[in-house]
C-alpha cells in the first residue's frame, strides 16, 4: 500500500480461546489523523481486535499473526470512562504518574513543575480548561462528559499515536453522542490514528474514514466509509445497515375474548405522598401485544412492576381473569406467579453468574410447575433451542454468552412458566441493531405461535412498539393516549404522542444533524428516545 506510514498495523491476526476462533485472520492499518471503524454486532470480535492493539488478549488465548504499533503507547477510551478512573484516588493521580515518567531526564528540583505543566496542558488539549480544580476532585464528582475528557487527556498526555475507543457512544443520548463525536474528531485532527469500535452506526457514519465490517471474527467487508455506506457489497453489511422496522400488526377483527389482564384506577406511589403513576383503565386481551411507550421517568417501568407484583405501594387494582391479583409477589401462589412473568432490561444481572444458563432456565419449571428436574431440563433445552440457542452455549456460565443470547435465555426462562402474560421491560435497549431486530422477530414469532400468550412491551423505542397490536403512551405518569398501534403511530391524537412519533424515525439515521437542528429542550426528548439515561441525570457537574 502507498500513502502515509501506518501508526499501527495488524496483519493476519487470529485469536483462539478454548478452541474457538474469536478473531480470524483480521488485517488492518491505522493511518495518522484518520478514523478507522470496526463495525459489527456484539461478539463479532471487534473488541478483541481493538484490545490486540493495546497488547492485551483474553486469558489463555492462542494468538497468531502480527500486531505492530508505532513507538509510543496506545491510548484507550472505554465505553464507561468511570471504569478506568480509580474511585479511591483523585483524578490527577494517574495523570501525575504518567507525567512523572516523562520528566525523568530533568534535574530533580524542576521535575515537579514540569510534570504539572504537562498535565495541565494535556487537560487543556482535551477541552478541560479548568484543569487545576479538576485534578483535586474524585472521579464520582465529575460529570460523565468530564470523565470521558479526563480519559482522553490521559491518552494525549501519554503522547499516544493511536487511540482505541471502545463503544464510546453506545447507550448515550443524542447530545452526549454529538459531543463524543466532536472530541474524537478533535483527537484525529491532532494527527492521532483513532480506532473506533462501535455498533452505533450514526456515530460511525459521522466519524469514520475507513470502515471494516466484522462478523464472527472475520472482516466481511472493508473500505472507505462513503463507499461501504452507499454501496455495501456484502449481504451482511446490507443487513447491518438496513433499518427496516417490523411491520405494524393489525388488531384482530371481530368480538374480543374477555380480558386476561385489567388495570383499574391504579395510582402508584414511591414514597408516601409522591404519586408517580395514574392509570385509570388498561386492558390486555389474550394473544394480544400491548406496548407501553414513554420516555425514561414516565412511569412505564413502575406500571410493569405493579403488574408483576414487584411494586406494592399502589391504590386501585390489577385483575387477572377478573380476579384481583395480590400486590406483592409473596402473596401470589405458584399459579399466579407463573401466570404473570417478567423479563428484565439487564439480562446479565438477572442471571446467577456461577451456574450454567440451562440449569437456571429449567429451574422455573421446577419451581412454578413442579416438574421433575430431568423433564424440566429437557423442556428448557427445547424452548432455548426454539429461540435459537444451541445446547452447547447454554450449558455454559452466563459470562460466556453475549447480551443478545442472554436476553433470549431470559425470555426462555419466563416462557418455561407457561405464562398468560409476559411483561418485557426495555428488553431491546442496549442491543445492537441486528440483535435487536432478531429479538423483535422472535417476539413476533411467539405471538404467532403461542396462541393466547399476551405480551406487555415496555419501551421507549418506536421500532419495538411497532410490534404491538395496541399502544398506550405514558407521559409524566399519565396515560395520554391509547389505541390500536396503527392509529397511534400514524395518526396520533395527543400532541405529546405526535411529538414522540415524528422526529424519532429521522433520528435513527442521522442523530447528529437532527440534534443540531432542534432546540435544547427538544434534544433531551430525542436523547430519551434514543435509549439513554436523561442527560440531566448524568451530567451532575453542571458543565453545559
Amino acid at each position, binding site marked *: 500500500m502507498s500513502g502515509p506510514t501506518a501508526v499501527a498495523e495488524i496483519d493476519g491476526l487470529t485469536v483462539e480461546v478454548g478452541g474457538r476462533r474469536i478473531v480470524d485472520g483480521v488485517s488492518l492499518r491505522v493511518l495518522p489523523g484518520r478514523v478507522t471503524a470496526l463495525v459489527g454486532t456484539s461478539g463479532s470480535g471487534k473488541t478483541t481486535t481493538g484490545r490486540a492493539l493495546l497488547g*492485551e488478549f483474553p486469558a489463555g488465548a492462542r494468538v497468531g499473526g502480527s500486531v505492530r504499533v508505532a513507538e509510543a*503507547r496506545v491510548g484507550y477510551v472505554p465505553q464507561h470512562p468511570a471504569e478506568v478512573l*480509580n474511585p*479511591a484516588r483523585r483524578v490527577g493521580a*494517574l495523570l501525575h*504518574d504518567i507525567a512523572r515518567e516523562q520528566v525523568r531526564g530533568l534535574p530533580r528540583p524542576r521535575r515537579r513543575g514540569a510534570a504539572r505543566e504537562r498535565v495541565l496542558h494535556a487537560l487543556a488539549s482535551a477541552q478541560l480548561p479548568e484543569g487545576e480544580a479538576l485534578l483535586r476532585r*474524585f472521579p*464520582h464528582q465529575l460529570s460523565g462528559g468530564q470523565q470521558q475528557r479526563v480519559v482522553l487527556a490521559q491518552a494525549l498526555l501519554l503522547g499516544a499515536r493511536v487511540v482505541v475507543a471502545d463503544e464510546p457512544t453506545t447507550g448515550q443520548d443524542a447530545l452526549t453522542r454529538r459531543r463524543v463525536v466532536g472530541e474524537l474528531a478533535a483527537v484525529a485532527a491532532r494527527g492521532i490514528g483513532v480506532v473506533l469500535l462501535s455498533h452505533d452506526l450514526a456515530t460511525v457514519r459521522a466519524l469514520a474514514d475507513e470502515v471494516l465490517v466484522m462478523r464472527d471474527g472475520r472482516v466481511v467487508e472493508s473500505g472507505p466509509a462513503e463507499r461501504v455506506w452507499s454501496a455495501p457489497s456484502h449481504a451482511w453489511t446490507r443487513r447491518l445497515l438496513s433499518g427496516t422496522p417490523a411491520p405494524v400488526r393489525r388488531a384482530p377483527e371481530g368480538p374480543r375474548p374477555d380480558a386476561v389482564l385489567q388495570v383499574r384506577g391504579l395510582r402508584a406511589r414511591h414514597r408516601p405522598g409522591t404519586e408517580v403513576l395514574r392509570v385509570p383503565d388498561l386492558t390486555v386481551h389474550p394473544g394480544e401485544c400491548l406496548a407501553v411507550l414513554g420516555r425514561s421517568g414516565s412511569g412505564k417501568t413502575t406500571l410493569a412492576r405493579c403488574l408483576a407484583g414487584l411494586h406494592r405501594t399502589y391504590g386501585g387494582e390489577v385483575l387477572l381473569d377478573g380476579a384481583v391479583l395480590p400486590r406483592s409477589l409473596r402473596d401470589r401462589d405458584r399459579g399466579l406467579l407463573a401466570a404473570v412473568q417478567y423479563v428484565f432490561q439487564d439480562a446479565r444481572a438477572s442471571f446467577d453468574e456461577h451456574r450454567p444458563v440451562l440449569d437456571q432456565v429449567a429451574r422455573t419449571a421446577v419451581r412454578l410447575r413442579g416438574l421433575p428436574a430431568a423433564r424440566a431440563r429437557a423442556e428448557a433445552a427445547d424452548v432455548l433451542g426454539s429461540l435459537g440457542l444451541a445446547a452447547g452455549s447454554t450449558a455454559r456460565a452466563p459470562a460466556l454468552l453475549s447480551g443478545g443470547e442472554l436476553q433470549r435465555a431470559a425470555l426462555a426462562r419466563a416462557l418455561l412458566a407457561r405464562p398468560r402474560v409476559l411483561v418485557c421491560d426495555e428488553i431491546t435497549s442496549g442491543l445492537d441493531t441486528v440483535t435487536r431486530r432478531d429479538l423483535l422477530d422472535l417476539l413476533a414469532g411467539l405471538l404467532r405461535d403461542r396462541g393466547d400468550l399476551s405480551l406487555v412491551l415496555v419501551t421507549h423505542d418506536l421500532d419495538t412498539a411497532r410490534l404491538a397490536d395496541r399502544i398506550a403512551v405514558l407521559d409524566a405518569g399519565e396515560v395520554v393516549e391509547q389505541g390500536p398501534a396503527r392509529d397511534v403511530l400514524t395518526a396520533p391524537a395527543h400532541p405529546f404522542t405526535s411529538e414522540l412519533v415524528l422526529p424519532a424515525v429521522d433520528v435513527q439515521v442521522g442523530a447528529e444533524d437532527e440534534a443540531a437542528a432542534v432546540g435544547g429542550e427538544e434534544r433531551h426528548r430525542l436523547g430519551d428516545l434514543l435509549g439513554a439515561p436523561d442527560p440531566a441525570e448524568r451530567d451532575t457537574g453542571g458543565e453545559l
Partner: protein
Amino acid sequence: MSGLGSWAARRLLLGGAQTAAVVLLVFALTEALPGDAAVALAGDQPDPARIAAVREAMELDRPAHERLADWAGGLLHADFGTSLVSGRPVGAYLSDAFGPTLLLASLTVVLLVPAGVGLGVLAARFEGRPVDRLVSAVTLGVYAVPEFALGVLLVTVFALRLGWLPPTAVGYGTDLLGHPAALVLPVLVLLSRPVCSLCRLVRASMIDALASPYVAQARRYGVAGARVRYAHALPNAVAPAAQQLARTVDWLLCGVIVVEALFVIPGLGTVLMNAVAERDVPVVQGLAVVFGVVTVVLNLGADLVAHRFAPRAEVAA
C-alpha cells in the same frame, strides 16, 4: 467539599450522642444490680454494718437521677469518683494503668500495619501461587490459635526452656519501656491474630483492585509495578482495612485481659480484673466509660478514613 464537612459534623454529633448513651447505660446497669450496689458489694458474707457504710459512701439513699447528675458532672472534669476498696480516686487507677496498655497497644499497631498490609499485598500479588498458599495457610492456622494458648506456648519455649526472655513483667511495675525484653512476648501474642485478619482482608480487597479496569489502565500507561500496587490498588483496600484496624485497636486499648493477666502487666485489663474481683463498682464504672469512649472515638476515626478512601460509599452517619 462542604459535603465532607457536613458529613463529618453529623458524624461527630452522633459520636457525642453515642458517648452520652454509654455513660447512661453504664449507670443504668449498675442501678439494675439486684438489691443495690451496696448489697452486691458486700458479697457472700453480708455484714449489715458494711452494707450501711457502702450505702453511705455511695450516697445510695439519694434519688438515682441526682446521683447520675453528680457522677456525669464529675466525668466532665475527669472526676471518676473514689474506689470503695482503697479509697483512692478512680482517675488515678485509670491513669496509672493506661500507660502500660497504651504502650502495648501502640507497639502492636506500629508492627501490625506494615506486617498485615505487606503480607496481604504479597499474597494478592501472587494470588494462587505458592507464596499466596503459604501466607494464606499460615495466617489461617495462626488465627485459629487462641491468645492464651499461644501465650503459654511462647512462654514455655522462649522463657522457660530457652531462657531468652523473661516470662512475665513481674517486678517491673509500670516502667515497661525500661525493660524491652519483657515486652517481646506480650506484643507477639497480641500481634498474632490481628495480623492474620488484617492480612486476609487486605489480600481479598487487593485481588479485586488488581483485577480492576483502572489498575489495567495504569499498567497499560506504563506505571511501574510497585507503584501500581501501592499507589493505585492499595487505596481501594484501605477503607475495609481501616474499619478492621479500628476494631483491633479498640480491643488492644480496652485492656487485653488475657494477655495482661498472663504476663502480669499492670494495664487496664488487670485493673478491670481486680476491680471485678473486689466488686469495686466505681472503678468498673470508670473503666466502662473509658472503654466506651475509646470505642466511639476509634470508630469515628475509621469512618473518616473510610469516607476518604471510599468516597462514593454512603458510610452510615
